[in-house]
């Protein structure tokens, strides 16, 4: 009797240990991932408050002896040429990203709704051609798109970037939103139409509010994609006053001797809008990506 109890107890202990092993493995992995993502950012932040000389020292100063915000002051000062350029690049990036985001939502919302609710000739074909672009790496389209942009006279305009970012961002945006609309019962619209709404009103008043998380996720996705994009911005734009941040930072700081604190300060400020956007809206983003995974 006691032997049986003992064996079973030992069995339980054994099982608990194995589960704990997995759990600890998971924790260690997560800590590793956290360090992997957070350390470069921490180093970026620390370097940005060093003086130019301290940044080049070896062995490095883990914490600057004389922390200074001079790099930030320089970048944000519209009086000096560095600040002028940085603020202009920042504004350009904001403008291109915002335009891309707004247009992407304006196009993706009705497109996704149409794919979800209507049957029309070529519906499936169109839906998969929307995804076709995603089968190829973006760089493949660099030269053809450049030739195309030159042909329609859009080289050296922000419009060329907005158009390009739209073609890259829209497919996923439409897929994401279609999943959302598929999950909204069609009876809600029917009820609204019987209650006195037109089809359009039913969409605006009932369906749109319910798909807000999806729309927000789509917007974040488009914004971040456009904000961070480098290679197309580098190819399509050559005039200094038009550059976006990713290109501008690189050009501006490596021409003479590299000002690492300045570069890091600029990089940090470039990541601020994305991080803020993500922190504020992340719950919508997660909801959008997991929506439809489980049936309610």
């Amino acid at each position, binding site marked *: 009797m006691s032997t049986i109890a003992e064996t079973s107890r030992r069995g339980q202990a054994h099982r608990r240990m194995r589960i704990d092993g997995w759990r600890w493995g998971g924790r260690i992995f997560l800590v590793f991932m956290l360090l992997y993502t957070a350390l470069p950012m921490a180093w970026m932040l620390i370097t940005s408050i060093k003086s130019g000389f301290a940044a080049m020292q070896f062995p490095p100063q883990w914490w600057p002896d004389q922390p200074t915000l001079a790099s930030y002051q320089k970048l944000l000062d519209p009086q000096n040429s560095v600040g002028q350029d940085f603020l202009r690049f920042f504004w350009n990036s904001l403008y291109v990203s915002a335009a891309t985001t707004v247009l992407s939502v304006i196009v993706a919302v009705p497109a996704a709704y149409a794919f979800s609710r209507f049957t029309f000739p070529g519906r499936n074909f169109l839906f998969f051609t929307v995804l076709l672009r995603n089968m190829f790496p973006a760089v493949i389209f660099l030269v053809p798109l450049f030739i195309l942009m030159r042909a329609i006279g859009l080289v050296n305009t922000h419009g060329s970037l907005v158009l390009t970012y739209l073609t890259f961002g829209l497919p996923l945006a439409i897929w994401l939103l279609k999943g959302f609309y598929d999950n909204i*019962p069609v*009876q*809600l619209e*029917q*009820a*609204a*139409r*019987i*209650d*006195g*709404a*037109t089809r359009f*009103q039913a969409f605006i008043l*009932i369906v749109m*509010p*319910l798909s807000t998380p999806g729309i927000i996720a789509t917007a974040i996705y488009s914004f971040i994609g456009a904000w961070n994009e480098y290679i197309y911005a580098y190819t399509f734009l050559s005039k200094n006053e038009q550059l976006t941040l990713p290109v501008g930072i690189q050009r501006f700081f490596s021409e003479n001797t590299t000002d690492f604190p300045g570069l890091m300060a600029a990089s940090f400020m470039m990541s601020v809008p994305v991080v803020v956007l993500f922190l504020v809206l992340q719950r919508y983003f997660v909801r959008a990506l997991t929506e439809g995974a489980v049936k309610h």
Partner: protein
Amino acid sequence: MAHVVLKDLVKTYGSFKAVNEVSLTVNDGEFVALVGPSGCGKTTTLNLIAGLIPITSGDIVIGDQVVNDLDPKDRDIAMVFQNYALYPQKSVYMNLAFPLQMRRLPKAEIDKKVREAARVLDMTQLLERKPRELSGGQQQRVALGRALVRDPAVFLMDEPLSNLDAKLRVQMRSEIKRFHQDLKATIVYVTHDQLEAVTMADRMAVMNGGYLQQYDSPAQVFAHPANMFVASFVGSPAMSLIPLEASTANGDTVLKSAEGWSLGLSQLNARKAQRATGRKVVLGARHSTIKLHKSAVPGAIPAKAYTVEPTGDVTFVQALLSGAIVNISVSPNIAVKPDEQIWLEFDQERMHLFDGETEMALEAA
């Protein structure tokens, strides 16, 4: 309130005919149930009346207006959906107010009507809640309220009770019936549950395969089913249908079984069966119209008990007869064992005869 007329209503999807020349009239203040198995076209018919899908041909009249091409919002109808279709982001109050806001009523009037509807349906304390915070029965009541608040010409209901548990369903059934009596509302009610149709409706339209099979009061449909489909669909347990053959000899018409026995008929039934002499005739009998005997009786047919199901009030005996399963209800104090020899006596007054080929009820010549 208004009447509804369907004239030769047709809806096709490609080559598939979902609704096939359905014509019926729902009188002002009448409660009509569209009933049939799934895929019979009843919900499609309701959606056609609502204007949610376009008709292929025919006419729909609500009140005195042909509404074929009108938007749902212009048809002066209200609809209760199977999943209630409450707006999840709106409170109960705003759900009830929505149809009135869409009609641009003044705020004070909206408030008055919403509170009145809430009072009638006894849910004043729920007005500030969101739909997901309500039980199934409460959601159902809000859906009814949203239909009621606008005082529409016609109420359309699409299986409003099928998402509720059995007990609540019985309770809401009587509430909807009461709702109809109090409002004298014109109601078109879709259900797959023949019991709901029989208990609630003034008239029931039995549909199958896109065709209207029979349109009459529940009592009439029950007592005089137009064909074998209606006979087997309405009533529970289903009417037993026994395939036989009509044969006339010496001016006397009897029903012959392939098993060798034959069943004599009353004068009226003989006249019906004569019309199908030499052909297949299907005898229909409900469980309560068949008498079970434990010994041979003149006029009774020998059969073997197959299964016995006591339910407390009555015991259902299933017997094999001429290749068909026959349901008989007997008093629980009659003990029948499976495989026991029994004799069945059919009530001539309440038996049904159907043409074996057309499946239509046979009428006396």
